[in-house]
């Protein structure tokens, strides 16, 4: 077997590249012809309305889903044809923060963060302890090490999950709705943390989110996903200034626009059995 260096010394080219990806099922296409690339060290935000395909795109990046056509390249390598061992070798270089943390409920905060270290390294117990406490310190929860996941708040759980996601010093961290359901303080803390960790640890980050205010403050590049494709991308300022009606509606949180308030339905008259002559509001 040829030896392949998992950390090539020449970090050339983008860390992630999505080329002409179409994804979905035979009878229902969710994303079509998506192209995007993400340079190392940057924070990318995927925004768009719920059900628009953001999470699908995130799952493509980690090959939790495979594209129907097109390629998803991680560090220049196509993920689709890899077998489980090759895929897992790449996934060790990724950390993922799930929407509600997905902490192991039977393990303490400390053991949750130690989990990837115990699974993938042969480090001594004292080394693991130091590493775990360092990671917990980075998210401000060194003092919560002995608590169980059911004893901490949602915002804390997400920070523990973040510590776990960066335990193996990944190159890429993916955040699935990191701000959902957080109070304003935790929200600001989490956003700041994402940016600071990205810069301090030399990560590359992808955030799927609805919280535009927080996201625009920390993202380098914003991609708006809607109607099964990328409708706009650019820096936060470029998106704010966009004249595209869809982007305008989304960025300014207007209830009606190209994204309809009403789900497609039969005419109101027919549904309520009203005679043709009567006025309908």
């Amino acid at each position: 077997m040829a030896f392949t260096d998992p950390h090539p010394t020449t970090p050339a080219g983008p860390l992630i590249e999505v080329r002409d990806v179409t994804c979905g099922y035979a009878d229902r296409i969710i994303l079509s012809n998506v192209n995007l690339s993400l340079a190392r060290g940057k924070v990318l935000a995927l925004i768009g309305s719920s059900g628009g395909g953001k999470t699908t795109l995130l799952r493509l990046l980690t090959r939790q889903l495979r594209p129907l056509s097109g390629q998803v390249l991680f560090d220049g390598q196509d993920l689709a044809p890899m077998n489980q061992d090759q895929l897992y070798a790449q996934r060790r270089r990724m950390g993922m923060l799930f929407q509600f943390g997905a902490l192991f409920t039977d393990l303490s905060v400390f053991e949750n963060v130690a989990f990837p270290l115990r699974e993938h390294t042969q480090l001594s117990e004292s080394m693991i302890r130091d590493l775990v406490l360092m990671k917990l310190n980075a998210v401000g929860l060194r003092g919560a090490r002995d608590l169980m996941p059911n004893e901490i708040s949602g915002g804390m759980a997400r920070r523990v999950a973040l510590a776990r996601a960066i335990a193996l010093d990944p190159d890429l961290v993916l955040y699935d709705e990191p701000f959902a359901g957080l109070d304003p303080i935790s929200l600001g803390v989490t956003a700041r943390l994402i940016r600071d960790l990205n810069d301090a640890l030399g990560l590359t980050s992808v955030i799927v989110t609805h919280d535009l205010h927080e996201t625009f403050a920390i993202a380098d590049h914003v991609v708006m996903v809607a109607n099964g494709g990328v409708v706009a991308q650019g820096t936060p300022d470029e998106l704010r200034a966009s004249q595209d009606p869809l982007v305008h509606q989304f960025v300014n949180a207007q209830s009606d626009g190209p994204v309809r308030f009403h789900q497609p339905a039969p005419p109101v008259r027919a549904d309520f059995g009203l005679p043709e002559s009567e006025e309908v509001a």
Partner: protein
Amino acid sequence: MKALPTAIGRGLRLKLVDWGWSARLLGQLLLGLGACLRRFVLVREQIFYLGNRSLSIIGVSGLFVGFVLALQGYYTLQRYGSAEAVGLLVALSLVRELGPVVAALLFAGRAGTSLTAEIGLMKAGEQLSAMEMMAVDPIKRVLAPRFWAGFIAMPLLAAVFSAVGIVGGYLVAVPLIGVDAGSFWSQMQGGVDVFADVGNGVIKSVVFGVTVSFVALLQGYACKPTPEGVSAATTRTVVMSSLAVLALDFMLTAMMFSI
């Protein structure tokens, strides 16, 4: 006109996919043995949760089954003037049949359901996905240790069930009814064969342990990650593993008689 064949074909195809998927999972669980042996501590923990925690229900049930067997056995045997054989009857019934079967049914209700619910809730909480994202295979890390723990725990539980049941039979037959203690034990000792009786019972309980653990893990792993999905899967675990145990028991007994 085409609707019926299409529906049948579609149903059949989905069933085949299901079976294929299940068989693949079983294969992966069996192959997980290597990983389990390398980190036996994971299996040991599960033997504690599945085995030790089931001991009380297994012990109490075994005791009462032993009581009842002695009473019913005595009732029949004394008609033929062979009440001393009640010890043999209790031991053979337990070791050959009731020990493995009843222990497996109790195991399905006590440990199988908790396995299904645990795996189902881990799936619902995205814990299994999180593990995959950490490049840890949840089948090797979570499911296989539980499967092999069931494989080890079940024969031990069946043995405990039978042993306690025999003590229960003794308590009813000898002190209560007044059967002679010497003939109670000596008949049992003379009539129970290590290989033909105890051995076959052990084979049965191993098969049941594998069956119940597999059904429970399969249901948990395949369940819909919602509250209704987990509850339906837990119910299916009890129904399917109980029926499988009873059907397999008949087949194994028939095979053992023909040897």
